[in-house]
C-alpha cells in the first residue's frame, strides 16, 4: 500500500452518558472503546461482531454522523475529527453511507429522483445537470430511469436498497460505509445487492467499511476483517488469514457457531457459555474472559492490547502475546 491510506482510525472512542442518578457517579456506555485500523483505496474492511459490540456506532462515528468522544479519524491524511462541523461539511462528499433498513432510510414523501438528487442539490449542482446525473445513477444501480418519479413505497426492498446505494454514489465518494446493507433482504435479493457492491468497487475504486453480522457475507466481500467485542477490537487483519486461522478465542467461537450447509453429522463446535454481555457494565480486564474457554487470571485482571503479530495482523489476547 503506497502513499497515505484512504482512512486511518486512531483510538476512536464514543461514550454515551447515562442519566445521572442522585448521589451516584456519572455512568456511561462505552459503545466504542478505542479502535484503530487503516484502510487503503479500493479496499474493503468488514467489521463483525454481535449485538452490543458497537460496530454500527463505530461506523457512524467514523463519518461523524455521531460525534466521537475521543480519538482521530484521518481521511487521506487529514484529521477530520479536529474540524468544526462547518469545516467538515465539504468532506461529506468523500464519505457516504448505506443504511440497513431499506424502508426507513428513504423519505416516504419524496420521489426517488428527488432523494437521489438531494446530495447534488446540497452541493450546488443545478437542476438540469442534476437530472442527467441522477439518470446515470439509476442506470448504474440497475433501476429504470422512468421510475425516478415514483415514491419509495412503490419499490421493493431490494430496489430500495439500490436507491440507497445510488444516493451514496451521487457525490462520488471514495469511501462508503455500509451498515448491514443486506441483512433486511431475502437471500435471493441479497446476492443481487452484494454483486452490485462488488461491481461498483471494481468499476469506481471505492473503499467500503462494511458492518455486518453475517460472516459469510463479510468473507465474500472483505479484504480485511476486524472483529469487535464490547467496543474493542479483538482481532483484525487479512480476511483470508482470519477466516482460515483465527487466533482470538472469540473469533474462533464466532466462526464455529455459524451453521453451515456442508456440515457432516456431529460437528465439533465451540459453544460459548453465557450471554452476550451488555455494554453498560462490561466485565473487568479482558471483556471476553467470563465466556472464554481459555481464560486465565491475568485475563480477569488486565485488558490485553491489540498487538501486531506479523504482517499487519493484530490480536488482543494474552494467549498470543509473546
Amino acid at each position, binding site marked *: 500500500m503506497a502513499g497515505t491510506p484512504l482512512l486511518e482510525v486512531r483510538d476512536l472512542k464514543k461514550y454515551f452518558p447515562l442519566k445521572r442518578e442522585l448521589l451516584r457517579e456519572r455512568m456511561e456506555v462505552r459503545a466504542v472503546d478505542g479502535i484503530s485500523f487503516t484502510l487503503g483505496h479500493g479496499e474493503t474492511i468488514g467489521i463483525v461482531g*454481535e*449485538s452490543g459490540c458497537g460496530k454500527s456506532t463505530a461506523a457512524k462515528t467514523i463519518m461523524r454522523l455521531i460525534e466521537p468522544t475521543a480519538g482521530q479519524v484521518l481521511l487521506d491524511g487529514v484529521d477530520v475529527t479536529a474540524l468544526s462541523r462547518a469545516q467538515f461539511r465539504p468532506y461529506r462528499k468523500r464519505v457516504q453511507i448505506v443504511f440497513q433498513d431499506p424502508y426507513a432510510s428513504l423519505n416516504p414523501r419524496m420521489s426517488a429522483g428527488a432523494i437521489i438528487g438531494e446530495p447534488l442539490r446540497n452541493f450546488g449542482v443545478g437542476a438540469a445537470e442534476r437530472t442527467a446525473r441522477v439518470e446515470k445513477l439509476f442506470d448504474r444501480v440497475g433501476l429504470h430511469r422512468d421510475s425516478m418519479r415514483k415514491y419509495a413505497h412503490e419499490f*421493493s426492498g*431490494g430496489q430500495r436498497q439500490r436507491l440507497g446505494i445510488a444516493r451514496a454514489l451521487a457525490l462520488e465518494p471514495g469511501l462508503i460505509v455500509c451498515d448491514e446493507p443486506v441483512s433486511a433482504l*431475502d*437471500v*435471493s*435479493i*441479497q*446476492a*443481487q445487492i*452484494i*454483486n452490485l457492491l*462488488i461491481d461498483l468497487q471494481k468499476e469506481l475504486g471505492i473503499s467500503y467499511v462494511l458492518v455486518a*453480522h*453475517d*460472516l*459469510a*457475507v463479510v*468473507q*465474500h466481500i*472483505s*479484504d480485511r476483517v476486524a472483529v469487535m467485542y464490547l467496543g474493542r477490537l479483538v482481532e483484525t487483519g487479512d*480476511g*483470508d488469514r482470519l*477466516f*482460515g*486461522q483465527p487466533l482470538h478465542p472469540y473469533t474462533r*467461537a*464466532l*466462526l*464455529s*457457531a*455459524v*451453521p*453451515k*450447509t*456442508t*456440515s*457432516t*453429522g*456431529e*460437528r465439533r*463446535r465451540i*459453544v*460459548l457459555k453465557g*450471554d*452476550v454481555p451488555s455494554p453498560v457494565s462490561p466485565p473487568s480486564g479482558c471483556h471476553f474472559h467470563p465466556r472464554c474457554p481459555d481464560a486465565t487470571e491475568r485475563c480477569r485482571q488486565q485488558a490485553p492490547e491489540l498487538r501486531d503479530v506479523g504482517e499487519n495482523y493484530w490480536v488482543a489476547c494474552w494467549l498470543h502475546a509473546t
Partner: protein
Amino acid sequence: MTSTAARDPIAGIGSRDPIVQIDDLKVWFANRDGIIRAVDGVSFDLQRGETLGLVGESGCGKSVTAMTMLQLIPSPPSVIAGGSIRYNGADLLKFDEERMRTIRGNEISMIFQDPMTSLNPVLTVGEQIAETAVLHRKLGRRAARELAVEMLHKVNIPEPQRRADEYPHQFSGGMRQRAMIAAALACNPKVLIADEPTTALDVTIQAQIIELMLDLKREFGTSIIMITHDLGVVAETCARVVVMYAGRKVEEAAAGELFSAPLHPYTQGLLLATPRLETAPGTRRADRPRLAEIPGMVPTLKGELKGCSFAPRCHKATAICRESAPKLEDRGNGHIVSCFNCGSA
C-alpha cells in the same frame, strides 16, 4: 449416510410413520384488493420423531402453513380454500375451538421468532411455563411450579428457582428463547413447530439454541417442523427439507441430498446465491466464485396463476413452464420436485 443418522437418531430414513399429514392445503386471504393465495396446494408429511425443515423466502407461505396447523390465523380474512391437515389421522381443520385448545401446547406446540413479543411481559416466566401444565395436565399450583422450575433447568437456565419468579424483561434474548422452548415442551407435545426460532438471535446464541433443541429432541423424542430461511440452520438440524416458493412446494428431499444435488432451479439458485463461510485454512477470496443471482422478485400472490410460479425468474424456463403448473414427481429416494426441466443440475 451417517450424517443423517446423527441428525435424527430416532427415525431412520425411509420410515413411513407420519404423525402429521398435510394434503393439498390451500389458505387464501381475501381483502378488497383481491385474493392472495398465500398457500396454494401444499402437501407434505412429518414422520414421527423426525425434524423436517420448511424453507423459503419471505412470502412463500411457510409461516402461514404452520400457523394454520394450530388454527392461529383469524378466519376472516383467511379462508381455507381446500385440503386437510391430519394429526394422527384426524383432520385438524375440522376441529372446533374447544377441541383445538386441547391440542395447542399439549399435543402440538409452537415457538416463534421474536422472544421479546411472544412472552407476556406482565407475568413471570414461571407462571407462563406452568400455564400449559395447569391447563392440560390439571396440575395444582405447587406441582405446576415444580414442573416449570424443572423445565427451566432442562433448558440450561442457571438458578432456575430464582429465575422462575422473574419477568421476561429480566431475561436476555437467548434466555427468553429458552424460556419459550421450556413453555412449549412443558407438556411433552408430540410435535413442535419452530417458526424462525433463531433468526433474531446473535450467532453464538443461535448455536446454543440449536444445540439445546437437538438435545431436547433426543430426550423427548419430539417431531419438529423447523421453519427458517437460513439454509445453514436447516443443514444442521433437519433430516428432510421441504422448499417452498410463492405458496407452493417446489422440492422435497433428505437434507444431505438437497444440499449436494438439488434439482429445482429455485433451490439451485438459492444455494448458489448464498455466500458460504469457508473456514478451511488457505481459502483465498480471489478464488471465490461470484454469487449467482436470481433475477427479478417474488411474484405477487394475487389472482389466478398460469404456469409455474417460478417461470418468470427461471433460466431454464420453456414454453410449457408458462402454460401449465408442473406436478410434483418423485425422482427416487424420496426426492420430490415439481419442474418440467430439471433433469440435471
